[in-house]
């Protein structure tokens, strides 16, 4: 089930709110309500996959209990941690990467090993990473192992962050699973945040998606330089509003039930270097890889530049693969690795961050690299990128580009304005009193939420771009 749908908004959410707040006074019952409804939420896509998630939960629960019990017995806890991580990686390997690996071997060696055609469980990367976070945090002593299987089940399957993140670390919510306090202020702020996220997804991301689908489906011969840049830029905007919209909805929903998730985006489009961009984009995933992969490998406090490069390479290959089992994702990760390494070693990143041209530099590079994950293959991605630079005799501009710009003008303007931290600036410059400003914001949120619900109900166009993740 996706948040921006009638089934969720008008049925699942009100029923969950009613049942949860009826059971709120007994924490165990309230958690059980959330867990059962979260499993139902997950089953909405494909009921069979609930069994896979439950298997993952039980294994990680047992391993965490074992790790805690063996904490003082040298080596044995670590062995269990390795078992847990191996099982999680194996789950990902079987369900997400098996066919990718077989296909790659087939192409490389010219053999014909049959593909498994195993369906990809939605959100498997998100819940597997959360499961690993649980056992690793227990191993590191950052949280206690849960005796109660239901609590682990709730942590891993909690519906707000289940299929599209943010990746919630166990240490972040360990205390809240059993000891949270639901306040009216949290509920109000959560509902407000949810509405903002819903509007971002339904109005801006979906509108951009329409344009992007059209442009990327055009044959190479009909592309122009300007159209290819328009398509690529709008795809980056689509991914941002889709992803940050879902994150807003997840964070808002979490607050409505008393949970406090960490922020996942921090105005990434104001970044002046690619390094800064990644400090502001998908923060939960970046910090996950930083804390569970990069730091254990030695991080940046290593003696040789080669070792630093290796550590970063490992992180970015994994980041690419995490996003999708395809060479386009691997290539996407490698390109970001190359740019980030260059920024780090040459000081280019720091220099750019001090100059205004850094905006243009960062956005142009991120837009270019993001083309890879929208393309069906590496060759089509590079063919698209070639068009962006006018190779192959593409025209600079045409009537189609002008038509699309006019047709999507308001969405593009709104998307750009809303991606920048302009609120405080506008209020200050126009000297708008706080009360008037807040009321205006409230009215605006109510209006865009209504328009967003109307849009999803009317159009039926609601792409789910995390399917690969």
């Amino acid at each position, binding site marked *: *089930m996706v948040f921006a*749908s*009638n*089934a969720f*908004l*008008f*049925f699942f*959410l*009100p029923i969950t*709110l*009613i049942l949860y707040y009826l059971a709120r006074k007994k924490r165990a019952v309230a958690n059980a309500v959330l867990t059962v409804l979260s499993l139902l939420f997950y*089953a*909405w896509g*494909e*009921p*069979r996959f609930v069994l896979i998630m439950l298997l993952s939960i039980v294994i990680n629960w047992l391993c965490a209990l074992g790790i805690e019990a063996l904490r003082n017995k040298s080596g044995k806890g670590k062995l269990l941690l390795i078992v847990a991580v191996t099982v999680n990686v194996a789950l990902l390997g079987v369900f997400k990467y098996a066919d990718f690996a077989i296909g790659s071997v087939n192409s490389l060696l010219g053999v014909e090993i049959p593909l498994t055609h195993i369906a990809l469980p939605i959100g498997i990367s998100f819940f597997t990473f959360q499961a690993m976070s649980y056992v690793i945090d227990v191993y590191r002593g950052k949280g206690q192992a849960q005796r109660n299987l239901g609590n682990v089940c709730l942590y891993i399957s909690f519906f707000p962050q289940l299929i599209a993140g943010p990746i919630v670390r166990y240490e972040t919510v360990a205390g809240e699973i059993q000891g949270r306090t639901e306040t*009216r*202020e949290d*509920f*109000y*702020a*959560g*509902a*407000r945040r*949810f*509405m903002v996220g819903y509007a971002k997804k339904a109005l801006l991301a979906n509108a951009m998606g*329409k344009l992007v689908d*059209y442009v990327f*489906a*055009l044959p190479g011969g009909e592309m122009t330089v300007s159209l290819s840049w328009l398509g690529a830029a709008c795809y980056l905007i689509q991914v941002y509003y889709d992803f940050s919209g879902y994150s807003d909805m997840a964070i808002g929903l979490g607050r409505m039930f008393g949970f406090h998730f960490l922020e996942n985006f921090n105005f990434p489009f104001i970044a002046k270097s690619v390094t800064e961009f990644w400090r502001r984009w998908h923060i939960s995933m970046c910090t996950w890889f930083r804390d569970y992969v990069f730091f254990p490998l030695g991080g940046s406090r290593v003696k040789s530049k080669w070792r630093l490069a290796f550590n970063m390479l490992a992180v970015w290959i994994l980041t690419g693969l995490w996003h999708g089992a395809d060479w386009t994702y691997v290539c996407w990760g490698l390109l970001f690795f190359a740019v980030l390494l260059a920024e780090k070693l040459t000081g280019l990143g720091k220099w750019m961050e001090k100059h205004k041209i850094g905006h243009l530099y960062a956005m142009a590079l991120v837009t270019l690299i993001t083309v890879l994950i929208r393309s069906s293959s590496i060759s089509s991605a590079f063919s698209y990128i070639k068009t962006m630079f006018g190779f192959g005799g593409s025209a600079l501009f*045409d*009537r*189609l580009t*002008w*038509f*699309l710009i*006019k*047709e*999507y*003008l*308001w969405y593009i303007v709104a998307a750009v304005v809303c991606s920048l931290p302009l609120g405080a600036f506008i209020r200050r410059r126009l000297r708008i009193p*706080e*009360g008037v400003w*807040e*009321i205006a*914001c*409230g009215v605006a*949120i*109510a209006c865009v*939420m*209504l*328009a967003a*619900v*109307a*849009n999803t*109900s*009317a*159009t*039926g*166009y609601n792409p789910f771009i995390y399917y690969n993740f």
Partner: protein
Amino acid sequence: MREKVSKWLAILFVVAIVGVMAGTIAVHGRNFAYGFFKGYKDQLPDDPDIFDSISARIDRLDYNASRRIVGLDVLRHLSARTQILPPKVMVNVSTEMARLSTGGWINVVAERFTPEKVNDIISFAKEMEEEYAVPTAVIYCHPALYEEGIQPGDLDVYNQCNSYADSLTEILRENGLSVWDSRDTYTGHALTMDEAVNKSDVHWTHLMALYTAYDGAEYISRQLGLDLDWEKLDPGLFSREMYRNLLFGEFARRLGRSLVTLDDVYLLYPQYETHLTYERFDEEDEVFREGSFRETVIESEKLEKEGKHDYSENAYYVYGSNLAQVHTYNEAAPDTTVLVFKDSFGQPISMFMSLAARDVYSVDMRDADHDMKYYVEKIRPDVVIIAYCQQSFRNIEVEIEGN
């Protein structure tokens, strides 16, 4: 102040979602319950397991939730209104629509046509010719935009319905199929857009369907040397009853009355005497009618205004049962058996064909239990006619296994 505003927003939000849920259950609860407890069985595969059953029930709930919530029409109209901000000319209502300079609304076919889309139909036609000596002909039903230069702004660079139609018919002809293109009917008879295209509905008018059936039957008869009495389809031999301001099609209902006007509907039936039988030959329903064309083929109840509305939603479907597998028998027509694979555009064409051939079988593959080849083997027709609009060439499969 921020807390106060958030409080009122949250209250509004909760009241709205709980209100819509309660209202929907009150109004459509029976549909939801039927889908969950009984209707889901239609979607089960052969030999279903427990997960298939759960999955099918969830699908039905999801389907109902997306189509049956209280106030859905209001939301759709609001969406249309909020989308048409100048300079925007298109409205997204599951597919895209665009305002024509003539004031009506018309479906925009945005999906690109590629040759691969018709490969299955070409292979099917070749196989039928080789194995059963049954030729296949195509009546291409152009969905919209018969005129050049009527699209607003630069829309013609986006909506290439006509050039896609050119590619489609060219590929079919190159592969040896006899193809009649309804655009030739439009120009050949000097029809106007008002005569050819409904404004409130994605479908063409019955008049356009009749002219196309007339031309198509003549063309196929001459091309393939078939005995079809195409002269019986001459629109000059038909009575016309006009129902003013009757049709309000599905797409227009998503936009609202303030943006789209109702369509007049012409009911066309032969002035000459006819006698035929009409029966559904699929196994589910038993429908049998005998009498004149008007008494058997035309389902007049669809011309009535529905419920509280001052319009009919189904007036387009007045010619026979859409999605049904129908056999008509006309003793007075030449002894020729025609198998028509049709979509909703081809529906009236297949019914008009009953006047030109003795046995006409019409099959809609979207609701069929077998693939196309099965029907040819079973019926052994003298000709197969595929009467599809552009979208159907993209979307309807030859090998469909039924729904």
